[in-house]
């Protein structure tokens, strides 16, 4: 529900599934002055509350040689919430974790590809990466606690055919690392949603029973009967929507939807048509990232 304006600090080098996207490309970064101008403009033009809120994304922000200047630009522009989209590796250093906190960073979007090294490290292509990144998150949270600073960490899991089975473990790991929100973002058009949905449901349950909210992006309501509150649209966009679950849906224009008044049990028997998965992904992309 809390929106962030995405500001690209560069391109490449982020945590992505190497089997879907190939080997990671080295990051390239934009000039600090240019980014600072965009930050300033985004804050000045912010038209909703609460905010303004800025997300530095596009490439690992700790790789930007002038990150402190970018953070300073955000605070100078009266940014209320500053979020870094990070792999958290740099946060293992107390200097980085403490420095970013003291400078004003309060939110992290932390990307993981799975809940076990066997999945995350294998898909990322770097042994030891998962443990190191968990260490970074814990370091950030520990210093924030010592300094009595309120922080929010969202674990983002890009869901693809290679990690869907590991979603419950990913949720468990994120809970254990201390996040307060988990975002399952379906980004693989070739993902067999029908087989992935039980894993998503299990991940949602893993979060909830541990007091951590799990949100699902890229899946229509009708595909997650009984779990519709977890669908991002429910949280962000539906103004007082009621049953039937798909009364107002991002897919309305192309999908006839579930039968009006259908029960959750009836909805569960619907077999998702092949186009639904592809469509869900394109809708998700069209909507853009919303931290």
């Amino acid at each position, binding site marked *: 529900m*809390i929106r962030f304006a995405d500001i690209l600090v560069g391109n490449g080098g982020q945590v992505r599934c190497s089997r879907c996207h190939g080997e990671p490309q080295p990051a390239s970064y934009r000039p600090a002055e240019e980014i600072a101008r965009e930050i300033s403009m985004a804050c000045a033009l912010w038209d909703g509350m609460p905010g303004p809120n800025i997300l530095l994304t596009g490439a690992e922000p700790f790789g930007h040689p002038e990150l402190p200047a970018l953070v300073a630009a955000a605070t100078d522009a009266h940014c209320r919430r500053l979020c870094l989209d990070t792999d958290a590796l740099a946060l293992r250093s107390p200097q980085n974790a403490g420095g970013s906190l003291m400078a004003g960073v309060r939110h992290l979007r932390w990307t993981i590809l799975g809940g076990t090294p066997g999945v995350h490290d294998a898909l990322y292509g770097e042994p030891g990466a998962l443990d190191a990144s968990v260490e970074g998150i814990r370091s950030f949270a520990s210093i924030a606690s010592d300094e009595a600073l*309120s922080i929010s960490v969202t674990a983002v899991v890009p869901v693809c055919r290679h990690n869907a089975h590991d979603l419950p473990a990913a949720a468990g790991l994120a809970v254990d690392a201390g996040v307060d929100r988990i975002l399952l973002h379906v980004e693989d058009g070739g993902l067999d949603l029908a087989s992935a949905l039980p894993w998503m449901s299990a991940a949602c349950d893993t979060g909830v029973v541990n007091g951590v909210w799990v949100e699902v992006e890229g899946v229509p309501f009708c595909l997650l009967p009984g779990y519709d509150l977890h669908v991002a649209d429910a949280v962000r966009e539906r103004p007082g929507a009621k049953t039937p679950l798909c009364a107002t849906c991002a897919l309305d224009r192309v999908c006839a939807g579930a039968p009006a008044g259908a029960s959750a049990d009836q909805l569960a028997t619907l077999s998702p048509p092949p186009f639904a998965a592809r469509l869900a992904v394109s809708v998700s992309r069209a909507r853009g990232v919303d931290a």
Partner: protein
Amino acid sequence: MATAPLRCAMLALNSPGYRSLALGYLRAYAQSDRRLAGRVAFETLDLDTDVDPWWVAWRVLGLEPDVLAVSVTCWNARAVYEVCRIVASVRPECAIVLGGPEVGPAAAEVLAAHSEVGVIVRGEGELTFADLLAELAGGGKAWRVDGITLRRSGEIVATPDRALVANLDDLPSPYLTGVLTPVDGGAYLETYRGCPHRCAYCFEGKGYGRIRSFSDERIAAEIDFVAAAPGVSTFSFIDPVFNLTGERLRMLAARMAPHVARGVRLHTIEVDIERIDPEAAAVLRSAGVASVETGPQTIGAGALEACHRPFNAERFVAGVAALRQTGISCECDLIVGLPGDDAYDFLAGLRFVLALDPGKIQSSTLHVLPGTELWERAAELGLEFDREPPHEVIATPGIGFRDLRRAEVLASSLQTAYRARI
């Protein structure tokens, strides 16, 4: 030979850092009662809810009480019952007397469920408790005291209700009598009893039916005493609506003014936000108000109607905006699980308060409290709730068990994200 005084231990289990105002009133009144002078010795144990009940019992038993009087709320009830069981086992001759919003409205039910409890004081307790002590100290008959429920010859018996105190100034001030010592941040003042609203889920009005106020002179004396107490820089008011009337608000602000000039501030006072315009916000500011707490609790039409809650979105938004402009932090409260609401109504409420950027958002789950309309009408409204305190709602016709838990977690996550700011 002089008879040893009745030893009366008064116990409250409070949120950490707070002291029980209720016990303060009870003790201040009882100590002022000439019938009890020299016949009853009082000792107050103001402990925190996080103290283990066995150690609470240790402290109580160390006083070797003849009477144990406990103030019970839904939050401390489970611990209180455990303490009472232990105390009754070790010291069966001790009379255990309970009072407070958790037990008064359900007195017979509580006595039936807790054999260790002897007497329950119903409703406003000051006069009733003093009368009861007078009977106990004199070896008299407790059943002659109005306003209690007790066991008599194996039966649970309720004596007639007691009339409300006509003039609140007849109740000595816990602060001015020295019974309560103000502590920074934890001191509360009460300027009136009753509530102008009739929200179906709330027991704030305690069934008083009408509003009775302490005199302006008494209020002024308490403000001056607490605000000037050593080490006190913040305190609060327990009144359900601080801005009850414009005239009253200005009176309180004028009384606070010299203390505000010294840096004293009021925190977390409850206001009727829809009656706050820029002028009222300025008066609140001049009263030293740093933060307020308010609704809307819900914005769902069905729940508002079921709970008799007035809600005008435009005035609410204007009220929050006026406070923001004046620099007063506002906590907007929401309740999940109200009858008439479903999960999406709750989400709409979250979106509404979030868009106001009030400063703090607090969501809680409905508690179906004894004495409230929802307690009485739970079956009719289809409310499933835990009969054991704190009486949390389990499921409603609009939102099932699993979605209730989801809504709680979602709201908690949102509060964390909202709070995390520069």
